[in-house]
């Protein structure tokens, strides 16, 4: 199972996208299909002809007594000029006499236009089972569909009186929402009925707005909405599936940049990403080999340089004490140079793990060590201040800066303050200071402001690279006297 999903995840990005599109299409299709099946179809825009005749007759009578057109939501009434209707349609021929008879006026004052729907094509919606049963059994007795008129001339619509002995159909437990129209009833759409009023104006009834359509639009919106939500879920899922390996890849590459010993980038996700991860892992292996090589070389260099110094130091034990101390001092200076070269070339801090540590205690311990060695140094800081960092790296950073302050400025003041989201350490001395023009260039390797003082000029660049690896920085600030260096580290 896991292997199969892994295989699936290994497809190229194009395949992922194609899969997404296919899935989306299939999902959309499935949702539309499901909703269309589940929801009733768009209500047909047809009305029973017999009901329209009744309605118009009622409206005509009402208009005659009140003098203005009735208001009816589903039918549109107006009083005005004669409707411009085609006189020679089937419907006109069929319904006009019936309407005239119902209204009790001459056919000349009556016009009808409509489209007849073929009854067998439509089922029509019933609101309740009772209604349906009444509809099916017989037309309402007080309003026979076509009044006392003879059957219409058009054969298919001839009313066939239902056989009275036919038993009522059993009521199904789940009443169907649709039923065929009763026999002999025609279904009309796009109709317009007109009849002249006694005052010469015409009363026209036409099909009003079909509010049922609104419900249908709502359903269509629901279908779209559900499809969209469904597709969004699928897209989110696929995007996550694709993005997750890219994110972990990015993290792994970032980790390799900081530490070549970090865990290899996972070879997961789309094929292109796996190829990239393999390339990064190969690069990491070469880097590691390079680092191992360099570590070995540096160890050899250190050995080859320090062994003669040790011999010299032991040999100095045999000369008289004054000479011996001078030799020891010279050896110490050469050793300090060797140390700074090796430390600079080694780049150990990158490999050190990060821990939560108390920066106050760290600075205090460095200052105490210097104070115990008799140096003029002070520390000012508050309660404990926790940061995440490399304890050796940070010790080296601050030792370098404190050593500089003591070496060039005789006195060092270390001050730690907590600022909004960072810890700021300021180290000031009472020496000649750093001229403004050199405040940035001193961080370059092998830069020395005062060549009369020993050193290789590697302390500050090393310190700065440690600070920056911690997401902080070191800068020299303007000071009234001496040098003022400020280290910021994120909390």
């Amino acid at each position, binding site marked *: 199972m896991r292997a199969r999903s892994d295989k699936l995840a290994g497809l190229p990005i194009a395949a992922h996208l194609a899969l997404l599109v296919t899935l989306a299409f299939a999902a959309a299709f499935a949702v539309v299909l499901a909703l269309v099946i589940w929801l009733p179809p768009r209500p047909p825009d047809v009305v029973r002809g017999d009901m329209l005749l009744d309605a118009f007759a009622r409206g005509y009578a009402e208009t005659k007594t009140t003098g203005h057109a009735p208001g009816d939501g589903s039918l549109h009434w107006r009083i005005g000029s004669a409707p411009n209707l085609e006189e020679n349609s089937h419907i006109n021929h069929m319904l006009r006499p019936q309407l005239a008879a119902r209204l009790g006026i001459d056919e000349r004052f009556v016009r009808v236009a409509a489209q007849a729907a073929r009854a067998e094509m439509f089922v029509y919606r019933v609101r309740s089972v009772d209604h349906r049963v009444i509809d099916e059994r017989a037309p309402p007795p007080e309003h026979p569909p076509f009044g006392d008129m003879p059957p219409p001339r058009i054969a298919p619509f001839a009313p066939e009186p239902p056989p009275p002995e036919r038993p009522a159909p059993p009521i199904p437990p789940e009443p169907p929402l649709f039923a065929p129209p009763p026999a002999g009833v025609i279904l009309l759409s796009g109709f317009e009925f007109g009849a002249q009023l006694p005052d010469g104006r015409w009363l026209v009834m036409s099909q009003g707005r079909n509010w049922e359509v609104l419900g249908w639009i709502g359903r269509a919106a629901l279908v779209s909405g559900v499809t969209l939500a469904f597709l969004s879920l699928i897209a989110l899922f696929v995007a996550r599936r694709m993005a997750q390996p890219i994110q972990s890849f990015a993290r792994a590459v970032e980790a390799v940049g900081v530490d070549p010993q970090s865990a290899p980038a996972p070879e997961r996700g789309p094929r292109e990403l796996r190829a990239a991860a393999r390339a990064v892992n190969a690069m990491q292996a070469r880097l590691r080999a390079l680092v191992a090589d360099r570590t070995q070389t540096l160890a050899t260099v250190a050995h080859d340089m320090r062994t003669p110094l040790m011999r010299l130091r032991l040999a100095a034990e045999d000369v008289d004490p004054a000479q011996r101390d001078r030799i020891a001092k010279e050896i110490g200076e050469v050793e300090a140079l060797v140390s700074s070269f090796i430390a600079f070339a080694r780049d150990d801090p990158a490999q050190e793990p990060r*821990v939560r540590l108390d920066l106050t205690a760290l600075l205090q311990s460095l200052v105490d060590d210097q104070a115990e060695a008799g140096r003029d140094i002070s520390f000012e800081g508050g309660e404990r201040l926790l940061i995440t960092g490399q*304890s050796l790296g940070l010790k080296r950073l601050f030792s370098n800066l404190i050593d500089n302050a003591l070496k060039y400025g005789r006195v060092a003041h270390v001050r730690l303050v907590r600022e909004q989201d960072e810890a700021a350490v300021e180290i000031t001395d009472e020496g000649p200071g750093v001229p403004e023009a050199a405040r940035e260039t001193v961080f370059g390797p092998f830069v020395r402001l005062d060549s009369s003082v020993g050193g290789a000029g590697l302390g500050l660049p090393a310190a700065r690279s440690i600070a920056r690896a911690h997401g902080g920085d070191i800068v020299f600030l303007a000071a009234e006297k001496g040098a003022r260096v400020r280290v910021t580290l994120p909390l």
Partner: protein
Amino acid sequence: MSLEEPPRVLIVDDDGDICDGLVAVFERAGFSALAARDVAAMERLLAEKGADLIILDLMMPGEDGLSACRRMAGKGPPIIMLSALGDDADRIVGLEIGADDYLAKPCNPRELVARARAVLRRGRDKEGGLSGVDTVRFAGFRLDLARRELIDPDNVVIPLSTGEFRLLRAFVERPQRVLSREQLLDLAFANDSEVFDRAVDVQVSRLRKKLERHGEPELIRTVRGEGYLFAAKPSR
């Protein structure tokens, strides 16, 4: 010390001049000193004559000092590593694999002798000696002997100054015992440093601050007129 047999130091270094020089230095300081040029020779001498202390070079042909030290740590005599690799990281590696002390070349020969005396003094205190151990636990704290760091119960690293570390080490090696200021001076400060009783008090108060936990009893107690007592029970 003069009444007893002089302590025997075994110097292991592939460089002949350094061996000779160190033998001379240690003999002048009242030790009996032997030299071996590689790990195999060292083991032969250890089997034949034994030693109280080994001064071990790191980079040697054949088996190197680190692997020999790892093998012998805690079993044989205490080991001081004397190495051309002088970085903090190297020192930590050496101490972590069980060396009792670590010095970088070139060192002051008298400092080497002083450290050798300190290691021997610690080693004689059999019950509390921490030879070959790199971490000690007490009251939820951990003391990392290689990194010279205190790790508090919340896993926060609290760096210690050299003085604080030596003092805490002395306490941890002798728990639940009253230690006088003179004893602490002797144990925690090199013989050649000029410190006074008051310096011990200063270090103790700094150390107390670092060991302070809200609502917990003091770990270093003052015994009026006698000295100090470390109240916790350390374990390895």
